[in-house]
C-alpha cells in the first residue's frame, strides 16, 4: 500500500519534473529482514507491482552506497525498460527494510 504520492504537475513542477520525474510513491510495507540483494530486488519488484499495477520483471541494481550508521541505499531499475522510466530506491538499516520509493519518470 502507498503512504504518500508526490505528483509533479506541469503547472507546479517544482524541481523534480524538469529532471524527468513525474511522480514519487512512498511505499509502505511491513517491517522485515532482508537477507541480501535477492530480497531487495523482490521488494523492489513487488513495490512496482503494487504502485503501478504492472510487473516490471526482473530488477537490476544500478548502485548502492553505505550512508551513516548502517544505512544502505539501493537504486534499482527494471532489467528491460519500456515506455516511461521506473526507478526504485530502497533503504535498509542493518538488515531491516527502512524505506521503499517508486519513482515514475517520463
Amino acid at each position, binding site marked *: 500500500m502507498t503512504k504518500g504520492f508526490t505528483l509533479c504537475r506541469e503547472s507546479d513542477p517544482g524541481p*523534480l519534473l524538469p529532471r524527468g520525474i513525474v511522480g514519487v510513491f*512512498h*511505499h*509502505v510495507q511491513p517491517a522485515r529482514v532482508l537477507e541480501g540483494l535477492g530480497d531487495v530486488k523482490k521488494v523492489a519488484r513487488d513495490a512496482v507491482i503494487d504502485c503501478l499495477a504492472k510487473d516490471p520483471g526482473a530488477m537490476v541494481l544500478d548502485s548502492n552506497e553505505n*550512508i551513516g550508521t548502517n*544505512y544502505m541505499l539501493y537504486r534499482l531499475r527494471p532489467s528491460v525498460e519500456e515506455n516511461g522510466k521506473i526507478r526504485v530506491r530502497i*533503504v535498509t538499516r542493518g538488515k531491516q527494510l*527502512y*524505506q521503499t*520509493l517508486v519513482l515514475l519518470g517520463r
Partner: protein
Amino acid sequence: MGEGSGRPKLPPGQYYAPDFTIYKVMGQPSVDERLWRLVVKRNGVERARLGLEELENLGLERLRVDFHCVTGWSVANVVWEGVPVRRLVEKLGIDKGFNWMYVESYDGYTTVVHRDDALDPRAMIALKLNGRPLEPEQGWPARLVFPHLYGWKGAKWVHVLDFIDEYRDGYWEALGYHERGRVWEEERFKRTVV
C-alpha cells in the same frame, strides 16, 4: 552542538573530512547581486522583498560550528556570518504560528525546515564563510545554515522563504529524505515501514 556538552563531538555515522564536497544537483545559477532579492512569504503571500544591503542591515552574527552532510562527511569549525532567521521573522512581523519554512533557491532547488529548526538561535541566512563573502559555488550571495541539521537543509542561492502551515516536500524530501533532518537523531531518511 556537541562541543563541551558531554556528547561525542561527531553526530552518529559521520566522519571528519578536510573540506567541503560541493554538490550542485540543479547546477549553479548565475546571480546578479543588483537583482538578487530575498522574498519572504506567509502561506504563499509575499510579505517582504529584501535586497542584500537591507538584509545586512538587520545585523550580522558569527557562528563557529561543524557542518554535516547526509552522505556522511563533516567539516569541523566552519565560521559563518549572517542574519539569524529568527531575527528576520521578528523584524518582518511574521507570526510564529507557522509549522514549516519552505525554501526555494535560484537554481530551482527546494527544501523544507521545521518551525523549531527555523527559529533555532543558530539558524542563519549566511553571507560569509570563514571570514569572506560566500563563493558562488557555496551559494553566493546568501545561503541557509542550520548546524544541527544535515546540509541539504541549508539551501544555497536562497531566493524565497515561505512560512507555511501545511507541510510540503522539498526536492530531497520528495526523494525520501527526512522531513526534519536532525543530525544527532540521525534523521537521514523517511521511514516507510510499519
